[in-house]
């Protein structure tokens, strides 16, 4: 019985393999890309970054004309994935997904990797931080919160981890306003939001998209958005500029490749991923999920990452949130 089963399955495998070979046909030579591309996502499957990457990959399979597979190489605030992308073979078949953390973790003492280790391909997203309180909170505006903190009240702000972008965004806001908050680090934005709803803490700092469901349900009150413009999903929430605080911060996402990748390969990747970015399917996805659409080409993204790296260096030193 076992033997027959084995033989039958062996035959099945042979047939399937043959079909696979025939269906795929011989891969084209030389012309990039002729093979499967792998996108390294440094965050877990199913999270916001992963969702944007998989959606982009699904469209780019057509625009780039090759199979694209997503692997989640998580750990150490993204360091494992960034490192893997930086040290991959520089042939363009391994594309890294860079998030704002790549400009932060070196300063935080988490890992040595920096934007210097990778080459930008394109940026496709920017999400400003939103500072929110519970809807039964006595604070109606960010000025109320700042006044309360000045009076010595303890404002406990839930963040998605010490040294996370949402922590640094809130800490930067507090520094600009000249007050101090207590930061309670959680394992991601969702539990921090739950803690505000449960009344264990006063406020949370997260992206607009992350708080939008609770805002719409009337359970959270967003007080300020730390971006240049108001968010479509939070149209009634003022920006930091509007309330007179000179502070902007948020998360961004983009694609990178190892440093030694040839120019023409970077160019090809940029073109086909840009086409995917501009597709209706991807634009619809980003809009309904509440992700901000910001595009920068290879060169612009490269210098933007460097600017961010400089800026976070100063800020993290000043705020003294380095782990060691």
């Amino acid at each position, binding site marked *: 019985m076992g033997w027959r089963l*084995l033989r039958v*399955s*062996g035959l099945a*495998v042979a047939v*399937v*393999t043959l079909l*696979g*070979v025939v269906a*795929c046909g011989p*891969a084209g030579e030389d012309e990039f890309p002729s*093979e*499967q591309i*792998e996108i390294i996502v440094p965050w877990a499957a199913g999270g916001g970054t992963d969702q944007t990457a998989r959606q982009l990959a699904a469209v780019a399979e057509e625009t780039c004309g090759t199979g694209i*597979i*997503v*692997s989640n190489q998580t750990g150490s605030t993204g360091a494992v994935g960034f490192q893997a992308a930086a040290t991959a073979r520089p042939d363009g078949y391994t594309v890294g997904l860079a998030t704002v953390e790549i400009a932060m973790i070196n300063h935080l003492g988490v890992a040595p990797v920096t934007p210097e280790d990778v080459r930008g391909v394109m940026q496709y997203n920017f999400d400003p931080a939103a500072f929110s309180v519970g809807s039964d909170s006595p604070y109606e505006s960010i000025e109320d919160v700042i006044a309360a903190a000045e009076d010595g009240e303890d404002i406990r702000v839930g963040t998605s981890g*010490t040294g996370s972008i949402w922590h640094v965004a809130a800490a930067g806001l507090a520094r600009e306003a000249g007050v101090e908050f*207590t*930061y309670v680090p959680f394992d991601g934005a969702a539990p921090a939001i739950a803690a505000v709803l449960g009344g264990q803490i006063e406020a949370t700092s997260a992206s607009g998209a992350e708080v939008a469901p609770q805002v719409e349900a009337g359970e959270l009150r967003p007080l300020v958005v730390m971006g240049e413009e108001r968010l479509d999903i939070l149209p009634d929430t003022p920006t930091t500029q509007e309330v007179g605080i000179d502070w902007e911060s948020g998360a961004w996402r983009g694609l990178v490749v190892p440093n030694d990748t040839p120019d023409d390969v970077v160019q090809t990747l940029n073109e086909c991923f840009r086409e995917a970015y501009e597709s209706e399917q991807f634009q619809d996805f980003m809009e309904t999920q509440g992700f901000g659409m910001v595009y920068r080409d290879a060169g612009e993204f490269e210098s933007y990452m460097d600017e961010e790296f400089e800026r976070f260096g100063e800020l993290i030193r000043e705020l003294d*949130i380095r*782990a*060691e």
Partner: protein
Amino acid sequence: MRAGVGDIVAAALLVAVAVAVVLLTLDFPPPGQPDDPGAATFPRMVAGALAVFALLLLVQGGRSEESLPRGRALLRVVGVVVLLAIYAAVLEALGFMLATMLFLVGALLLAGMRRPLMLALMPVGVSLTLFYVFSVLLRVSLPRGVLERFIF
């Protein structure tokens, strides 16, 4: 029940681990916030508990269920562990299919399989099936080597 040789070795190892943990925590940073117990507190508590349990093991002893293998049995167990280590080490360099085939041939030999036909067919069949299921159907990223590029 008295402590046997196994218990004494285990207890010594565990106490060593506990001491090492405490020594390592001496370099941990102080808490970032005044009310946080800090990064070192929990590891120290757990290390302390481990040391206490290890000493209890010496006092109480415990049942040992099975004896360790000897002779050929020992060779087979060590052989599998070594094979697995090599497999893990060459996985990315050789690609999934080639590494898997080599590993399976080794593992089958260790398991006492001597028929050449089976030693050839089974590794090829299993590695092809698994690569197809994982990489093509489930879209899991597996290391690609020469064989994968040629076939899929």
